[in-house]
């Protein structure tokens, strides 16, 4: 990299705010996906002004810029695909304002998702989007990817909770979008920028809604002898118009993986379990939990367990939140997929997934947000075996095409990033993509910000390469 740029960055941020030695950069070549890309340097801004200056420098030296939170993303969104500067927001991790009365908070992008909920817990509020990686992932990352989570089934994903933000455009211009008050006049720029995967701006402040914690919660674990019974149960719950706070499904492979690691008390040997939260007023929760349990039994669940207290509930959820880590113990390299289908197609899709797995020689594990049809097939593979890696990628592509055939989409919460850019044309026409590219170019005209993401490039499949298994750890889930 240009030594003058490095010098200027160090002058701006201090030497502790810039990493450029190869061994220091290693960590930033990865995120939670199977992609790898090496940055030229990594910088750690302290405030919005730093970010503005970094952007100006990047412009002057025509160097790409990539924003990054905790690096838990699963689509390569925070990787410097074309090299350049990775801007890590870990030093911008302050909760700037909590307005309990109006149920708002303004945070810097580096605030860890769960930390915000912990910071306001004493007020009876929380930040509702809860990605499984919420102990590590940042709100800035959530905003970039429009992250979901188990409880977004009832509460909505990140975009439903963001009211406004301060952004630095790739030109270095500082702009405030939206506001703490609702219904900011004009085009919904906040809605456009949330989920734009870091391709339109670097976000430096975010104003979010805080949500009241429910008065009562009941957690149910329903055990099934067949996957079809489990998927039919989920479909029936949806059909009856019940919206549980969360509705998660595990198949037998993931039950074993999780139980070996977390000891959450999941029944090893069951074909599937469905983990369901219902919450709200005490009076509503009682009857809703009963109705859900009845539906499970109607679909032949031999056992429906209801957590008796908070400790039991937490244990059941610990199994879910640590599932990806559990899988990592069995297979240090695995491909965590993300696809969405209509909820009525769960059974047929899972059968297709098993067939695709068999075709490519994998046993595909499934642990996913069943209630909103958001699948997360896991393909375990040997990272040292290039052929196996290629087969895993091919199986993944087929799985995503299957989701599209079912009337679904190619990503429900992980983002397109550099993982699925080549799959975009399966879902969007040339004119759809051209207009979306136009949106990117309107704000990011020189392509300085997060280049090579979302939109199909002429990438050959061989560009994705497996890292040696010894270097890989399980992505934080």
């Amino acid at each position: 990299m240009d030594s003058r740029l490095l010098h200027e960055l160090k002058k701006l941020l201090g030497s502790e705010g810039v990493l450029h030695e190869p061994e220091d950069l290693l960590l930033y070549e990865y995120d939670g996906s199977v992609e790898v890309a090496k940055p030229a340097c990594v910088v750690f801004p302290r405030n919005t002004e730093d970010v503005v200056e970094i952007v100006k420098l990047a412009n002057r030296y025509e160097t790409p810029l990539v924003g990054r939170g905790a690096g838990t993303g699963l689509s390569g969104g925070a990787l410097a695909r074309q090299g350049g500067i990775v801007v890590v927001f870990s030093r911008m991790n302050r909760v700037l304002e909590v307005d309990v009365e109006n149920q708002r908070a303004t945070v810097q992008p580096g605030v860890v998702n769960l930390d915000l909920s912990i910071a306001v817990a004493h007020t009876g509020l929380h930040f509702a989007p809860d990605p499984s990686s919420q102990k590590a992932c940042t709100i800035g990352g959530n905003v970039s990817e429009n992250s979901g989570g188990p409880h977004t089934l009832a509460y909505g994903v990140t975009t439903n909770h963001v009211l406004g933000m301060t952004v630095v455009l790739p030109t270095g211009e500082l702009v405030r979008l939206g506001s703490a008050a609702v219904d900011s006049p004009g085009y919904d720029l906040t809605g456009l920028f949330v989920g734009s995967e870091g391709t339109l701006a670097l976000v430096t402040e975010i104003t979010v809604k805080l949500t009241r914690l429910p008065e009562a919660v009941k957690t149910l674990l329903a055990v099934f002898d067949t996957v079809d019974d489990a998927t039919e149960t989920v479909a029936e719950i949806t059909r009856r118009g019940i919206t549980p706070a969360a509705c998660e499904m595990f198949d037998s492979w993931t039950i074993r993986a999780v139980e070996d690691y977390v000891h959450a008390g999941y029944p090893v040997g069951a074909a599937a379990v469905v983990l369901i939260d219902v919450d709200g007023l005490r009076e509503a929760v009682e009857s809703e939990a009963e109705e859900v349990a009845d539906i499970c039994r109607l679909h032949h669940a031999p056992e429906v367990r209801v957590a008796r207290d908070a400790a039991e509930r937490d244990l059941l959820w610990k199994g879910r939140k640590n599932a990806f880590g559990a899988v990592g113990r069995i297979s240090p390299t695995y491909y965590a997929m993300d696809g969405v289908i209509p909820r009525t197609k769960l059974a047929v899709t899972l059968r297709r997934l098993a067939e695709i797995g068999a075709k490519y020689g994998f046993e595909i594990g499934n642990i996913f947000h069943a209630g909103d049809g958001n699948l997360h097939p896991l393909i375990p593979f040997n990272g040292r075996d290039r052929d196996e890696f290629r087969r895993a990628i091919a199986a993944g592509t087929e799985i995503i095409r299957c989701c599209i055939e079912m009337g679904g989409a190619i990503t429900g919460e992980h983002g397109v990033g550099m993982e699925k850019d080549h799959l975009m044309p399966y879902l969007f026409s040339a004119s759809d993509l051209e207009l979306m590219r136009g949106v990117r170019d309107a704000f990011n005209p020189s392509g300085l910000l997060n280049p090579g993401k979302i939109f199909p490039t002429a990438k050959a499949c061989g560009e994705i390469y497996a890292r040696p298994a010894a270097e890989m750890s399980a992505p934080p889930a």
Partner: protein
Amino acid sequence: MTAPSRLASISGPSHVVSESPELGAYEICGKRPAAVVRPGSSEEVAEIVKFAATEKLAVVPSGARTKLSMGLAPRQYDVALDMTRLDRVVAYDPADLTLGVEPGIPLQRLAAVLAEHKQWLPLAVPYMERTTVGGTIASGVDTPLRRMYGTARDYVLGMEFVTGQGVTAKSGGRVVKNVTGYDMHKLMIGALGTLGVMTKINFRTFPLPVDTRGFVASFASAERALELRHVIAHSPLRPQAVEILSSGAARILRGDVAARIAPGPSASEVFSKVHWTLAADFSGNEKVLDRCERDLRQMGEKCGGESFVVLSPDQMLPAASRKREFIPIALASSPAATIVKMGVLPTRMNEVLASAARAAETNSLPWAAIARGVGVIYFTLLPKDRSDETRLRVIQATDQILFECAGLGGNATIPWSPAEWKSSLKVWGLERGDLDLMRKLKTLFDPSGTVSPGRFVGGL
């Protein structure tokens, strides 16, 4: 070839009008188009817009034409694009609670389709009897039900639209969770057709509530009524709607004009003519509703509530329809009704209401206000005439309201006013720092200013 004959070659002669009496129905702020065309497909829409862009003609899409007076007058208006023939339910999967419709479908007709499956779209919007889905989404009118369900941006899953260049594009999809590509459809919501013409809208639907119950309490001041709003917000209760009405609002909702616009039995007497009213609607099973009633009565008494009425679903309906139709009722209640819409933090609502009332009263203008608990206020000035002197007082009052609202951290626009006053009112509010970004989008989606030019923020 003349414009009408070219339009006829696209949509068929029976779907093109260029005779002047019929054109009057498509006037916007006194501007009359040269032709009306009623396309029968999204392909026709694309072809018409492409033709207009080439010929430098301006097109304004409309549905039932109930809200065309919102925003600014179009800078140019040659062709009215009547979308009412695009009125099909394209896809409805009740078991998946997802829906795809063409924009011209009347909201009421769609509601009937959904009700067969005990579902609905929680859009209790003004002009409910006539409005189309497309008009509702394009105008961005809000609904009291947003307290529980959010606004359209929270349940529109995807869209197909035709840009100002006549290019058909889409974003989102028809699944309830999706982060594939940019959410361009969010830009279309409330854009008054200035970025393109919607040709298909996908929604997530919701189960109809099992049962509902309404609660109405009256208070000596807005402050007390709002105090109850705050207490509810910090309680475990989850109302589907919370609204606060000024005595002036109650008066017009109880009047003859209201009875004409929202006929039927009037439960609106429960709104106090002398005091402020808080109305809260809850849904759920009987146990839940009993609990809400009990808690609310206690909270209401603590906040100084002076009367407390419980409404059954049968009584709620007429009261709700009067509140829902507040905007058309207000517009018909004065020869020069001017409605300021404000978005403010809930705890600032009291100050904002007080300051707006001062501005109105200083300028001797009668007023009425209806506010949503989430922080939205419709503050209506109801002048007695349209004279120039009155216009000046309305300008003074609205300027003051806009500045003071901004000073209190809120935003304000003037969506409705007499057409001839629009050029002297700050229709889209005070200047904004993000207007340049919006201009970039307008330039991208509609480079030649073909669709609804000039109606939006900053004259976009």
